[in-house]
């Protein structure tokens, strides 16, 4: 046992000497490889964190939402629909919901206005999200001007600012009273934007949904499960930009591995011949090449992972900001929660370390079986 550990260490010694011989080339390789791992790991950590958090916090979303559809567009829903829905067996409660978008020309940002069930801040007052406060430089006690549907200016006073810890949900929210909402948007009193339902038995959801679609054919149903699934696939690799980033990284990778796998240079082959001539076995040669591959890939792997962790969870994925911000003026500042697990690390390991090491070992297999007498010529 002792013998074989020493044996491995001896071989590692030579493998490292071999890598140190071409310092420049290997340093460059290390740098690019680390960058690839960093990019991939950052994407994995960030997207997983958002998805996990979404699955936890959106659990309390309404069980069912009923929207009215007119000419293919989401339209206001008459509150009398509630009476018909209430009569369906299994429905425990149905409520109207008022929410909408307001475009603020002052900064060019979109806000989401919502009327909470119990709005206690009083008429003429609003509670705004931290993102709005930041974008408009508006604080408690300030007044914001809104232009109503009629052209009239409505002033609303900021009573409170929603805690910055919940920016992931509330960054662009404005909580407003029902009267103010209707004044602003002209939503008639007997209409709501949509209806939210709670049912007694969750297993009855699809039956109830079916009934609703029968009695109210101009409606569309959204179930809680569907809302949650929307966020399961957020930042899915199949989505646009992400696949560009990932393909880029993967391509860079394949180029390396290809360079390695396309065979050894004449010099390298001669060296292997020399090693064999002085008594190294085929297995020793392959081991040496393996450790050469591991030397580069493990080092890059660890550095890339650690840098990615710092990037995503300490700087809130700041490098992704320009991509995520897009055209929005109001960009939520939230800190992703480190929902990392061993499977993410394992996946990254198999995607990065294994292919490179394999690509280093395979071509050396053939060369390692060179007859040692080739160096005699």
């Amino acid at each position, binding site marked *: 046992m002792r013998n074989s550990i020493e044996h491995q*260490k*001896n071989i*590692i010694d030579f493998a*490292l000497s071999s890598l140190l011989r071409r310092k420049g080339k290997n340093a460059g390789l290390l740098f690019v490889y680390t960058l690839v791992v960093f990019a991939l790991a950052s994407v994995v950590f960030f997207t997983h964190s*958002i998805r996990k*958090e*979404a699955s936890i*916090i*959106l659990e309390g*979303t*309404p069980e069912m*939402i009923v929207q009215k559809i007119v000419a*293919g*567009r*989401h339209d206001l829903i008459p509150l009398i629909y509630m009476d018909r829905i209430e009569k369906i067996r299994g429905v425990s409660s149905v409520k109207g*919901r008022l929410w909408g*978008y307001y475009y603020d020309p002052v900064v060019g*940002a979109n806000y*989401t206005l*919502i009327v*909470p069930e119990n709005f206690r801040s009083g008429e003429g007052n609003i509670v705004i999200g931290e*993102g709005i406060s930041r974008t408009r430089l508006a604080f408690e006690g300030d007044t914001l001007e809104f232009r109503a549907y009629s052209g009239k200016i409505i002033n609303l006073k900021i009573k409170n600012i929603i*805690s910055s810890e*919940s*920016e*992931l949900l509330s960054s*662009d*929210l404005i909580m407003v009273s029902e009267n103010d909402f209707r004044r602003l948007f002209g939503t008639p009193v007997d209409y709501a934007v*949509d209806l*939210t339902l709670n049912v007694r038995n969750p297993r009855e959801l699809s039956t109830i*949904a*079916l009934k609703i*679609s029968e009695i109210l054919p101009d409606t569309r149903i*959204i*179930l809680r499960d569907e*809302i949650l*699934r*929307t966020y*399961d*696939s*957020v*930042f899915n690799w*199949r*989505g*646009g930009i992400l696949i560009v980033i990932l393909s880029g990284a993967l391509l860079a990778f394949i180029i390396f591995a290809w360079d390695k796998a396309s065979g050894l240079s004449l010099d390298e082959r001669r060296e292997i011949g020399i090693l064999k001539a002085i008594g190294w076995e085929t297995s020793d040669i392959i081991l040496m090449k393996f450790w050469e591959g591991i*030397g580069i890939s*493990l*080092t890059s792997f*660890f550095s890339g992972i*650690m840098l990615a962790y710092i990037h995503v969870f300490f700087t809130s994925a700041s490098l992704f900001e320009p991509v*995520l911000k*897009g*055209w*929005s*003026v109001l*960009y*939520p500042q939230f800190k992703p*929660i*480190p929902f*990392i697990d061993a499977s993410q690390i394992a996946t990254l390991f198999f995607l990065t370390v294994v292919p490179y090491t394999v690509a280093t070992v395979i071509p050396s297999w053939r060369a390692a079986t060179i007859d040692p007498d080739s160096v005699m010529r």
Partner: protein
Amino acid sequence: MRKSNLFLSYIAVNLLLLLLIFVHASFKRNSDQRFVIEKRAMVKQLRLTDLCLFTDASYTRHPSQADLHTAFHDHPASLEHFPSGSLLAPPPVIRRVNEKLD
């Protein structure tokens, strides 16, 4: 110091750091737990349906509420023009419209 010993200790240190990352993550999750609870309560109380990730278009701000037509409100044949739309795939719900009711 002998090269192989240096390398092996470097690997050992890195493994330790990786472990440290897991420990830190665990601690942070615990300390952030109350914010998660706070957000969860907010969702329930305000009957929210979406995360505030992209505020540039309605169908990226509330993707779970969007339907097949939302992206094309401007024109039936208009192409995707909000950058955030390329980060967000159409939600599964509209890819299988009414699947649950069939």
